């Protein structure tokens, strides 16, 4: 039997949604023989593979790398799930949107440091002017709000997809915690 190929990743987020994913505990083990996690922080693959059935994308789009990664994921994924409030609303990362990017960088790397004040420009992706939710860049198939989404809601969405149903998560999760 072909296992359903699942990937997870996080962009501009805190990994909390992945913690909630792991909180599925033994229920995750129960579906383990029907899924294969092919990419993500939980496994070793270095590059996002082709032909992924379901991808859970945590985090907002905050920099150029996030954007490229998201577009690559969209090309290679059948069902893309906007996973958690940062992905769905841009949430806490978007709180910097009220300020100019240069002011944010200056505040973080120049004003508040006592040693080598300088905005880093090498080896790090360029920040976008504003942090945005996923669906402002690519088509999203399912929205799973929550900070984080409760593990029951993640399990419900995954099992519905495994059974070939359209997930109905209304009332199971909401914005915020």
């Amino acid at each position, binding site marked *: 039997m072909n296992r359903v190929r699942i990937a997870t990743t996080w962009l501009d987020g805190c990994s909390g949604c992945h913690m909630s994913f792991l909180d599925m505990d033994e229920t995750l083990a129960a579906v383990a023989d029907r899924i294969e996690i092919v990419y993500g922080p939980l496994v070793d693959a270095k590059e996002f593979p082709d032909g992924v059935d379901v991808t859970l994308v945590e985090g907002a789009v905050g920099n150029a790398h996030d954007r490229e990664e998201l577009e690559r994921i969209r090309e290679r994924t059948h069902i893309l799930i906007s996973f958690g409030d940062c992905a769905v609303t841009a949430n806490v990362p978007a709180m910097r949107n009220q300020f100019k990017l240069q002011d944010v960088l200056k505040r973080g790397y120049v004003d508040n440091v006592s040693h080598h004040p300088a905005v880093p420009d090498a080896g790090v992706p360029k920040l976008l002017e*504003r942090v945005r*939710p996923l669906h402002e860049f690519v088509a999203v198939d399912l929205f799973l709000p929550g900070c984080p989404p409760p593990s029951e809601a993640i399990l419900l969405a995954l099992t519905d997809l495994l059974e070939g149903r359209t997930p109905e998560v209304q009332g199971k999760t909401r914005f*915020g*915690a």
Partner: protein
Amino acid sequence: MTTPSYTPDPTPYVRRDVNPVRILTFTIDGRDVSAREDETILSVARQNGIFIPTLCHLDGLSERGACRLCIVEVKGAPKLLPSCVTLPRQDMEVTTNSDRVADYRRKILELMYSERNHVCSVCVSNGHCELQNLSVVLGMTHVRYDYIYPKHAIDASHERFSVDHNRCVLCQRCVRVCDEIEGAHTWDVMGRGITSRVITDLNQPWGSSETCTGCGKCVQVCPTGALSEKGKSVAEMIKRRQFLPYLQMMRREGRRAVAEGIR
């Protein structure tokens, strides 16, 4: 302050012996209902157990029609009508939950989210917020409009309370409760359209307001985390609204007593 030219009264005591109220019949979602001519469609729907979502409405305050979430379809009317400020007519046919109504309600909710910075996860009212709950009830899982991310300040100049305009939905419950119940009229709305915001006195820091009595009624009726008690952290702000029906009842009985010459 000048003396107001009239006293706003959400539930006026009118002598029914000389002003008999008419009873009329109409339908809500195909059900025959009867109503007094001075009752709103929302009120009649609630009496009949028919759910209409609301945000700016609060039992005990006058109606403002600010949020537009209670819109309903009325047969023959091209526009959707806010049921909290629309009175029924004889034989009117009201629909509370068509696809068209549900779609507009969702859009209204999304526009509210896009207009300010509602970051539920770090909000004092997380878990106790009427806006947050409405997104669940109306099945709104994401906002299809671009967020505006406006820059709004927090006024924490008051000794006990603070106002965070990032979370305000302009329902004007604070304005109404301060005016109609407390009688101070500290709150009002300044600006127009998307630049509107609630202000204290003549747009001065809340802490320097000369009219604010510090009663905190505005904080308790606020549906979101816009108005909160100081010292409350994320998800800790639980609003206490029990005072409102009691105050209303006592005042209504008082007016009745005066009108009937009991005292």
